[in-house]
């Protein structure tokens, strides 16, 4: 077997090497040595990005499963498997991220025996465990099909309704509970982001991101794995995304209106710059774009609108978890390079596992396997695309 060293493979190797070095520092020198977290900033990039954003980006799983199996949106059937795969990998990597962030990860199982039902963190933990299990079962048919095991597929079919309902229930609880975590810090989190509505906002934004991520992913894998894009799928998702964004925008507006902050948020300040960035990326750009029919029918423009949405809500999560605390604490938190490197390593692992799964499992419907390449829609060469294709080789 010939192993070719491509550019992206080299990038992957560099990321993994640095990540492993940082992991060594994490486990043999401690959290203080590997991160810029402190008594003033006990939660850093790993909670803000790996956990909050990671779970949010995995929301596509329950959104698409819900649309297809609860509301019979048959058109989206072809994206169920990639969406479930992304969600499953997202959750597995979220747990990997936790193993870095927890001070005593070897006691993570304490969650199961020393339960504190008053703790939001307990709810988060239980949801992670149970939903990852549900996603595992939703993902299993891919493996059974690969090895042509008919009997277990039939078993899973039988419990599928339960898995679907359970999956959506747990996602609702989990996405919103990540917002509830911050409810206990009314005096610390900046009022732009502290609101009693946090759990609702977190859930609503997860739905929007779930849809945006599915558009992003479909386009990206179409490019990377040489499949043709199904325009009806993207058009449906784009329309749904527009509705979801309007709902989110309305919720945000209502929240600021009722808390009397509308005049505050337009005044320039450290926080409002970050808020403007967030609102521009989450609402102004994608809503404006998606309002044009031309955009909703163009895979490239839909792709851009979805990227803006995803980046916008990532900004939102980082604002809630990091930026919103800086004024209270009185100084800035800038993650150490080793923190970034571990986050990057986890993302790279995600890309690699995704491409391995796509390569060896029937994630994409058989009839779509691109034999006639000319049919596929050409998209601009995109960063990351090549990683998707080659990282897992």
């Amino acid at each position, binding site marked *: 077997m010939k192993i070719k060293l491509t550019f992206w493979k080299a990038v992957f190797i560099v990321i993994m090497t640095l990540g492993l070095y940082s992991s060594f520092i994490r486990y043999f020198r401690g959290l203080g040595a590997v991160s810029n977290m402190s008594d003033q900033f006990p939660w850093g990039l790993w909670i803000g990005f790996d956990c909050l954003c990671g779970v949010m980006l995995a929301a596509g799983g329950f959104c698409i499963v819900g649309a297809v199996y609860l509301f019979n949106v048959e058109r989206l059937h072809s994206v169920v498997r990639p969406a479930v795969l992304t969600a499953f990998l997202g959750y597995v990597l979220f747990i990997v991220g936790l193993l870095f962030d927890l001070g005593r990860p070897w006691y993570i199982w304490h969650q199961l025996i020393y339960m504190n039902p008053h*703790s939001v963190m307990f709810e988060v933990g239980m949801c992670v465990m149970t939903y990852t299990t549900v996603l595992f079962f939703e993902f299993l048919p891919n493996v059974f099909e690969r090895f042509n095991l008919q009997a277990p597929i039939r078993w899973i079919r039988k419990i599928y*309704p339960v898995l679907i309902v359970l999956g959506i229930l747990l996602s609702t609880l989990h996405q919103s509970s990540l917002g509830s975590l911050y409810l206990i*810090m009314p005096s610390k989190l900046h009022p732009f982001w502290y609101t009693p509505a946090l759990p609702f906002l977190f859930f609503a934004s997860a739905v929007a991101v779930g849809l945006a991520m599915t558009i992003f992913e479909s386009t990206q894998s179409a490019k990377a794995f040489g499949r043709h894009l199904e325009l009806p799928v993207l058009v449906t998702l784009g329309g749904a995304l527009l509705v979801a964004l309007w709902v989110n925008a309305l919720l945000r507006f209502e929240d600021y209106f009722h808390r009397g902050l509308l005049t505050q948020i337009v005044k320039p300040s450290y926080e409002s710059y970050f808020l403007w960035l967030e609102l521009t990326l989450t609402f102004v750009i994608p809503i404006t774009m998606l309002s044009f029919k031309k955009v909703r029918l163009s895979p490239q423009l839909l792709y851009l609108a979805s990227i803006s949405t995803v980046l916008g809500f990532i900004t939102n999560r980082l604002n809630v978890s990091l930026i919103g605390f800086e004024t209270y604490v009185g100084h800035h938190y800038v993650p150490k390079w080793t923190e970034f490197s571990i986050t990057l390593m986890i993302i790279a692992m995600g890309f690699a596992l995704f491409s391995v799964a796509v390569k060896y499992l029937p994630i994409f419907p058989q009839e779509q396997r691109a034999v006639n390449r000319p049919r596929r829609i050409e998209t601009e060469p995109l960063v990351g695309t090549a990683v998707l294709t080659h990282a897992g080789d």
Partner: protein
Amino acid sequence: MSKALLYDATMCIGCKQCEAACAQQNKLPYDDRVAAESVQSEHKYTVVMTKNDKFMRRLCMHCEHPACASACPVGAFHKTKEGPVVYDVWKCIGCRYCMVACAFNQPKYEWGSLNPRVRKCIMCPDRVVAGKQTACAEICPTGATKFGDREDLVKEAQERIRQNPTTYLPRIYGLNEVGGTSVLILSSTKVEEYRYPASEKIGNTPMPEYTGRVMSWIPDFIPAWSLVLGGIYWISHRREEVAEAEAEEKKNGSAR
């Protein structure tokens, strides 16, 4: 009855004997270097701060309704009936939610350790249970830190303010803040100048209530939402079945 500490900043002479006694009680290092540190840390549970020849002590407030205890997913913190908020290290998984949840920023972390613990004043629970004072109250030469029943100490504090209204600011910090704390502070200057959170900022609502409201919905939410989701599933698939059956009928009908 629940025990408490009353710290009267006007009586404090800044001798830092409480710091030393605390370190000794909790087997923490204490020397001139540590004594000079003006912030709390994983090796310094209490600190006496100096500002314009006035002193102020900081330590865990031992809230009546502690945020840390409600936040901890494994219940590593709990408020004992005697008053102290204590920490069971063997339960802790290291999520540090207690640290972000605490309105007074009291839990500190052993960032340099490979098996880190959360560290904070635990109000000498062994001594308190045994009917003794806390180490800091016992050693205090002026009685600035006084140990006793919370109700008695509140009365005494009110009495001191009444008798010396010019000396004291007319408030007992910790009486109602976040639903009341087991550490009460009397002073002639605003405690906010010593990095204590402002009363109006933290409010009088016990911190656990902010998350408790949401958490209390969950037992109702789970069955209700499952029913809704299950119902939608059933309806949409029932429609499918009916459509299939109708199509079948039509086919049979036209074939006939």
